[in-house]
């Protein structure tokens, strides 16, 4: 029986840290164990480390780094190339792709005296449009999952070896990675041995890409012990990945448009990593915010200042900000969303500082790239994106001094979180459960498109929305003329919102008119968070919803994230406070993603009658003077 030929790629994902703590200890441990593994097995492997981890390795384990450089020189180790922050490149503009690739290439060639020829990213996302960019940066091949090649070839049998694909006059080699083998090796022990035994006999090389778990010391040690054992026990003939191209001929040409990748939380039926942006509105918003910041910087800055801004944006291209995964691996984690938004807000603030402008602006453009325009209002303290085409609700509410996007709750049903999304509800609703169901059903949502007008006043701007809204109450359709006005003072974190509703029909309408805010936040704790209604502190149980009446003021504070929201209601209102929960994998909903506030008033509108409601929102860092 011929010895099994394996080209093994070990890759490390940078551990996510909300506070940006560098994984120094983890990398020191990894470098030692990796060296021991290579010495013990005398095997040849390929390695991919994100740029920041290479920098940590060079700083804290210089001896091991020097040893690795020697192994690269004698052909036992191959350094794979990629984006500096292991970015999901297909989602981003070509220039940002090129910066990521060049930065990584410069780092590897300077410190390991080798120009990487293979491109890799841990999510294994691929799109044919990357061919030209990769070829231009000197890459000759890339790794794609076996199932993607099977689908492109229309085969259900195993696909190994490499194929070529071409786009815009450039060529790229696509190398098949055996996903099942990769998973078996990462599980280690008997599973891996069984998988090796089950592989069909072939003269060709098997390719596996295995993630090294550096965050957990025990798992890391166990991983290398297992791997050493497998390679020695199975008598595997190991090679670096680039060696395959010397040993095997091309299997032919292939037209692989895109590969969805792995470990990004997409179902198997997905075809492209872009589906992440469709499935998760939070990831999509972060993506569009990054693109907007990039466009703003491109339009106003040049030279090294522009590079500074680009360097701030590069880490937000990492896969954890777009993957549909929980637990600091994806956008389902409130911490990941908080950090991603924070980085982009910081970049925007720096752009304003560098241009020397006041940052007081209104932009009407297709910010979210959805085919219709939104209104982005900015002052030096706050910013919000108003979707006038979707019921005049806010898609984001950014408090700049704390670099925080408040409208950031992830909803389990995949719906978009809004602030000031209006509802007209049936007057028969009488308990908190029925209110919650009515909001979830979207039955009373006033979501018709609004026409807009921007009124510039002294030190203030009013965005006036005007529309005819249709609502169904007690099986009857009612038409209302609604004027909704957002007023923002330049340089102040205050937002006034006023409504005027006119019953345009000849029948009387009774119901509840209210507005909903889905605020994203971390888990509440009594030490650093508080909710006050009419000045009195209330205790919040984040498992059930609660209804409060005769509310004149509502204050929400979070000392840890440094923000306080105060909502004053000149006309007393009712408020429903309920948690926004999501599931952690398949368990019951228990992960706090945010808080839902529904402020509502009793409304009795005679035919042609008019009602007016308003509320004032103030934001601050500590909430002392609110």
């Amino acid at each position, binding site marked *: 029986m011929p010895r099994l030929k394996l080209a093994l790629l070990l890759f490390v994902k940078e551990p996510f840290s909300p506070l940006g703590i560098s994984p120094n200890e983890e990398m020191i441990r990894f470098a030692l164990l990796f060296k021991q593994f290579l010495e013990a097995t005398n095997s040849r492997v390929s390695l991919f480390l994100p740029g920041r981890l290479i920098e940590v390795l060079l700083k804290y384990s210089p001896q091991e780094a020097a040893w690795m450089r020697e192994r690269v020189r004698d052909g036992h180790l191959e350094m794979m190339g990629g984006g500096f922050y292991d970015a999901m490149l297909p989602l981003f503009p070509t220039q940002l792709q090129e910066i990521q690739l060049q930065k990584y290439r410069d780092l590897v060639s300077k410190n390991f005296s080798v120009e990487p020829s293979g491109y890799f990213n841990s999510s294994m996302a691929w799109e044919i449009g990357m061919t030209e960019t990769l070829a231009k940066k000197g890459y000759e091949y890339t790794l794609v999952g076996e199932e993607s090649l099977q689908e492109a070839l229309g085969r259900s049998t195993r696909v190994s070896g490499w194929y070529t694909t071409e786009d815009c006059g450039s060529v790229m080699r696509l190398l098949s990675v055996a996903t099942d083998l990769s998973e078996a090796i990462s599980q280690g022990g008997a599973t891996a041995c069984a998988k090796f035994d089950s592989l069909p006999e072939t003269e060709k090389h098997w390719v596996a890409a295995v993630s090294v778990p550096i965050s957990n010391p025990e798992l890391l040690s166990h991983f290398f012990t297992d791997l050493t054992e497998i390679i020695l026990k199975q008598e595997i003939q190991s090679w670096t990945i680039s060696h395959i191209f010397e040993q095997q001929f091309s299997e032919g040409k292939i037209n692989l448009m895109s590969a969805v990748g792995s470990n990004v939380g997409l179902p198997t039926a997905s075809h492209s990593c872009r589906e992440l942006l469709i499935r998760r509105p939070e990831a999509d918003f972060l993506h569009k915010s990054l693109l907007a910041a990039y466009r703003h910087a491109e339009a106003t800055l040049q030279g090294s200042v522009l590079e500074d801004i680009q360097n701030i944006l590069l880490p937000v291209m990492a896969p954890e900000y777009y993957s549909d995964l929980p637990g600091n691996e994806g956008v389902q984690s409130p911490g990941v969303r908080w950090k991603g938004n924070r980085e982009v807000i910081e970049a925007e603030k720096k752009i304003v500082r560098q241009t020397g402008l006041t940052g*007081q602006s209104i*932009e*009407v*453009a297709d910010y979210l790239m959805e085919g219709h325009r939104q209104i982005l209002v900015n002052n030096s303290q706050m910013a919000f994106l108003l979707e006038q*085409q979707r019921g005049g609700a806010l898609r984001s509410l950014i408090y700049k001094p704390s670099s925080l996007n408040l409208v950031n709750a992830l909803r389990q049903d995949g719906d978009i979180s809004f602030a000031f999304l209006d509802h007209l509800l049936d007057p028969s609703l009488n308990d908190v459960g029925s209110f919650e169901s009515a909001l979830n059903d979207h039955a009373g949502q006033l979501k018709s498109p609004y026409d807009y007008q*921007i009124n*510039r006043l002294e030190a203030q701007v009013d965005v006036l929305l005007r529309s005819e809204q249709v609502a169904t109450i007690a099986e009857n359709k009612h038409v209302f003329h609604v004027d909704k006005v957002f007023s923002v003072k*330049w340089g102040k974190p205050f937002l006034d919102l006023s409504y005027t509703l006119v019953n345009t029909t000849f029948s009387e309408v009774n119901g509840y008119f209210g507005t909903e805010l889905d605020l994203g936040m971390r888990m509440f704790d009594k030490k650093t968070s508080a909710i006050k209604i009419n000045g009195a502190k209330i205790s919040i149980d984040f498992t059930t919803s609660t209804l409060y009446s005769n509310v004149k003021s509502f204050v929400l504070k979070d000392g840890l994230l440094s923000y306080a929201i105060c909502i004053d209601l000149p006309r007393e209102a009712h408020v429903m406070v309920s948690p926004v929960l999501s599931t952690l994998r398949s368990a019951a909903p228990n992960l706090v993603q945010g808080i839902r506030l529904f402020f509502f008033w009793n409304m009795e509108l005679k035919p042609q009658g008019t009602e007016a409601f308003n509320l004032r929102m103030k934001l601050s860092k500590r909430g002392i003077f609110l």
Partner: protein
Amino acid sequence: MKADLIDIFIEESGDDVYIRLQGTLGFMQLAAVREKIEMLIGGPGKFWFLDLEKVRFVDDEYLQLFLNVLNRIKKKEGTLVLLFDNAENIAYFSKFANIFEIYPSRDAYRRSGLLKQLKLVGATYSKQTGLRLSPGISVFLLILLVGWFLTLFSIIQNQSEEIREQKAQRMELENQKHQMVQEIDELRSMIGPLRHLGLVADSATSRSFENISDWVTYLEMLESRRRGN
């Protein structure tokens, strides 16, 4: 929705209002552009920068629209500056190149002349209203004037002090002179009898000192004699 047909960006900074339009503007967009522009220029502002660099005009009606906008801004004693640098738009506005102020960028406008720079920092002049200053410039000039007055006052104070000191010194010297003249008279009276006897020659009235009229000249002469002249 008409309002949803165009991309607009508005930025305010003091008296400056920067408006950027984007896209292809034809007859379909004309009403929306007119509505939005007229709505925006109804608000506060002095210098209106209308960035049309990323606009492609496919209808001549926009020239009339911008002329109307210019008139409205002039009525408000404001300035309209069109910003673009592409050949297509230069050709489009060529008929009215002398009417509109056209610059490639805001910086180019700022660098374009002293008068404009003055205007930009907040000083404007018109026949109706005379010289008008922005609040910032007014405060700056007020501080400058107060500074000047304070400096002048302190200079006058110092000079008066000096004059008083000199006056006091002069009076003291005059007193000393009187005392000395008295002493000389006394000494003269003391040696008067001796002179009458012909025992003392009066050096003060001798020939060699006949041209000397004061003590300073006398002392100078003594000094020059000491030096051997």
